[in-house]
């Protein structure tokens, strides 16, 4: 075992977390869980930003994390508002039942 953690480990962990989030988006039918999975994917990207910032000795990676967090917060606010509205009309947030736009 190496004495310090090589960056490959962080990349591997980030990929595993990202894949878990992508699986959540593909597999789950509950719209709220899908949003949580998207958050997980954004978080894995943030982890990689910070890891590369540490291993390259460059603070720009940490600055970019702020932007990602901001976008994530805005996305969650709008997304959950949409979910609440859809629930009021359809009485469900199962994405298989949300097909109003279907021609």
């Amino acid at each position, binding site marked *: *075992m190496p004495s*310090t*953690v*090589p*960056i*490959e*480990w962080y990349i591997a*962990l980030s*990929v*595993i*977390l*990202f894949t*878990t*989030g*992508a*699986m*959540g988006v593909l*597999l*789950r*039918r*509950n719209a*709220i*869980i899908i949003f*949580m*999975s998207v*958050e*997980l994917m954004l*978080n894995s990207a943030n*982890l990689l930003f*910070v*890891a590369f*910032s*540490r*291993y*390259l*000795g*460059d*603070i720009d990676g*940490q*600055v970019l*994390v*702020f*932007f990602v*967090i*901001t*976008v*994530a*917060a*805005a*996305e*969650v*606010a*709008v997304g959950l*508002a*949409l979910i609440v*509205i859809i629930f009021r*009309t359809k009485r469900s*947030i*199962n994405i*298989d039942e949300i097909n109003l736009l279907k021609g």
Partner: protein
Amino acid sequence: MGNPLLFIFLAVIAIAAALGMLFSRNAVHSALFLVLNFATIAVFYIVLNAPFIAMVQVTVYAGAIVVLFLFVIMLLGAEQLRALGSLSGGDRWQRILAGVLALALVVVTFAALLQIDVPGGDIPLIDSSPLALGLALFEGYVLPFELTGVLLLAAMIGVVVLGKSKKRGEDA
């Protein structure tokens, strides 16, 4: 860069929490697993010399965003919304395809990891205090910062408009 044992310990918790979020039938449990995952990643940030990012992670993600999730779940009473139920239906091939795609992503990335030359060795710690972060933000990223403000304003207006229209239109 941290201690390998600490990394493995935290990584196991993070992956287990992510899988727990993925497979929980109850949406509230999923949200709580998500908090655990965010907290673990915050510890990773501290290990990686980013203490301020770690605090932002805890307050914004584990605090604000997950509280918003829990609020909506409980507002809608959507805890048990046929969580994994429809998976047993006719879309079994979707599961298989998703599994294959996920496996492909992991395999491709690990194969790439074996070939690339990534930085290693002893990298000196950089100053990552809030002061240094703020200077980096406002010296190199002023325009993105302003655009972020516009994005937040747009999101805020969007949510207000969405919230209003449903009150007026749907009551009838």
